[in-house]
């Protein structure tokens, strides 16, 4: 409100630099006049000192002092009035509505800045009509497609699409085009594009469209991000993991069969210590083989070559079977196991994936629950979804580490202290499998009290609807 009053006052009496300086000078004179007695007294006292110091005559000292004082007074007045004027002027400019010319100029600057940003931004952008015709490609787009500078060499984006989400089929591409035409927002969809030099690049494409009934011809803004190198390095990593695990299988099998032979034969004489050591070798090798098998599975999950085969599974039968397999571990730690599984708890899923998922959760529950603790398995749900939960009274997961629990190779700090064994791949795999089955894996945990993992698996409407059953 203060600014408004200011501007109101300025309208009545406009403050200019000249007016300010005159009023400043008048104010100085007024100050000197009002304090003339003090000023004269002060002047003559200082003048005497001045004359003595510089060895001047009285008259010369008076003149010199008078000029100095006057300059000082006017200097201070000019500085104060100038500062005040600048402040007022800034306030005035802020208050005054800009002229059309100024607006146009500011708009032109903004437009230029925006254009520079659009043209030189590292992200490829362009606008497109419903038929995929490309207009206004920025430099990043031109570089990407190896276009001529006007971008006219790519007639339609659709012609450059080789695959959608890695699927190289006409249907997949048509479906994508249909989505664009309908104005469905597309965000970071993986598409393989062909450049004019024939190179194929994998990009994450996003398309933002204005309303379908908009009179605009080019109504889609397209932006994408080249992830070819990222995908390639992921592939190399996964290939390496796959190859390394394959190559590891032969030597581990050799160790397994030879120790197995020695332990099982009576034709070789050995004392108990040797036999005991052979057992150690055999068991260590078995653990290594488990790790290799897990690494292989991880590679397969990441390469996307592990497709679920849906069959109808009896949850009670599956859980009982796994518990039977883990019976010796449960007995060793004297755990109490409770199961609440209603009759006919059927679920459509891939048997191996679900088995591994439940097996992993139960193994963790046994491993990270102190002796004489309890483990509970509950199967619940209806015709729409099925939940399988595993609760333990174990050590729990520290709150600050809970967000990393599904990360690959992650092990909670307390888990590492409890057991040096563990790959940090179990929960990663479990979640990958549950997600592959169209489900979700959630958990709640409290340190020192225990953890509950819950698998939520879809039933009706799940992709299994068209799959054959095991029966």
């Amino acid at each position, binding site marked *: 409100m203060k600014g408004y009053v200011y501007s109101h006052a300025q309208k009545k009496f406009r403050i200019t630099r000249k007016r300010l300086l005159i009023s400043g000078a008048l104010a100085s004179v007024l100050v000197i006049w009002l304090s003339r007695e003090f000023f004269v007294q002060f002047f003559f006292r200082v003048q005497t000192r001045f004359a003595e110091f510089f060895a001047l005559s009285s008259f010369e000292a008076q003149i010199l002092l008078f000029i100095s004082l006057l300059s000082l007074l006017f200097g201070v007045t000019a500085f104060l009035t100038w500062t005040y004027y600048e402040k007022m002027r800034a306030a005035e400019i802020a208050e005054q509505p800009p002229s059309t010319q100024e607006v146009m100029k500011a708009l032109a600057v903004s437009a230029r800045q925006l254009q520079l940003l659009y043209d030189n931004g590292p992200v490829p952008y362009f606008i497109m009509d419903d038929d995929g015709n490309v207009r206004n490609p920025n430099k990043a787009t031109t570089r990407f497609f190896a276009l001529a500078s006007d971008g006219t060499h790519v007639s339609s984006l659709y012609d450059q699409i080789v695959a959608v989400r890695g699927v190289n089929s006409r249907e997949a591409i048509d479906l994508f085009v249909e989505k664009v035409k309908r104005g469905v927002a597309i965000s970071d969809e993986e598409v393989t594009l062909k450049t004019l030099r024939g190179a194929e690049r994998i990009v994450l494409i996003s398309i933002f469209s204005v309303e379908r009934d908009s009179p605009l011809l080019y109504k889609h803004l397209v932006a994408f991000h080249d992830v070819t190198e990222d995908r390639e390095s992921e592939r190399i990593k996964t290939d390496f993991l796959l190859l390394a695990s*394959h190559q590891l299988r*032969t030597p581990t099998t050799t160790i397994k069969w030879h120790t*197995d032979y020695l332990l*099982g034969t009576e034709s070789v004489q050995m004392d108990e210590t040797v036999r005991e050591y052979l057992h150690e070798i055999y068991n260590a090798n078995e653990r290594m*083989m488990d790790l*290799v098998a897990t690494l292989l599975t991880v590679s397969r999950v990441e390469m996307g*070559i592990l497709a679920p085969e849906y069959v109808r599974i009896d949850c009670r039968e599956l859980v009982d079977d796994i518990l039977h397999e883990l019976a010796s571990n449960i007995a060793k730690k004297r755990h109490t196991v409770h199961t609440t599984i209603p009759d006919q708890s059927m679920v459509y899923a891939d048997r191996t994936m679900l088995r591994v998922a439940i097996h992993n959760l139960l193994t963790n529950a046994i491993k990270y629950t102190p002796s004489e603790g309890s483990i509970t398995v509950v199967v619940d749900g209806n015709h729409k979804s099925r939940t399988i939960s595993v609760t333990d009274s174990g050590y729990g997961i520290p709150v600050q580490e809970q967000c990393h629990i599904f990360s690959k190779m992650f092990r909670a700090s307390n888990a590492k202290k409890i057991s040096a064994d563990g790959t940090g791949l179990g929960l990663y795999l479990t979640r990958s499998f549950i997600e592959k089955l169209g489900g979700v894996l959630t958990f709640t945990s409290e340190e020192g009290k225990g953890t509950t993992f819950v698998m939520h698996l879809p039933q009706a409407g799940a992709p299994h609807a068209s799959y054959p059953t095991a029966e």
Partner: protein
Amino acid sequence: MLSCHHMEETKQKRSVLIVDDEESLTNVLARKFTDEGIIAYTAYDGKQGLELALEKHPDVILLDIMMPEMDGFDVMKALQQDPWGKDVPVILLTNSSSLDTVAKAVTSGMSEFLVKTEMKLDQVVDHVKRRFE
């Protein structure tokens, strides 16, 4: 009714051919079979394996897939052409459990598919013995 002696004789006649380029694995498996009273022939590549099979006519063949000269599937194809070979039980013994291999194995006419890392020697012997019955 066969006499004990006759049974022993029949048992001794049982034979298995192991075709695998991993010599050390082949040898320890052969020794296990010998301990069990089964004649074990060994070959370290597909071509040698096929020749030995057609010469010795073993009761069961344990066949690896990835091998030099001829791979397991080529050996299978050649056996299918032979009047004796088309009926001999062939157990695939490999370390490749990829879906692709399994699918190819099923369509090639193999009797069984065993993954080496998952098997103990006793279990391999049991699988072979079941084929004798």
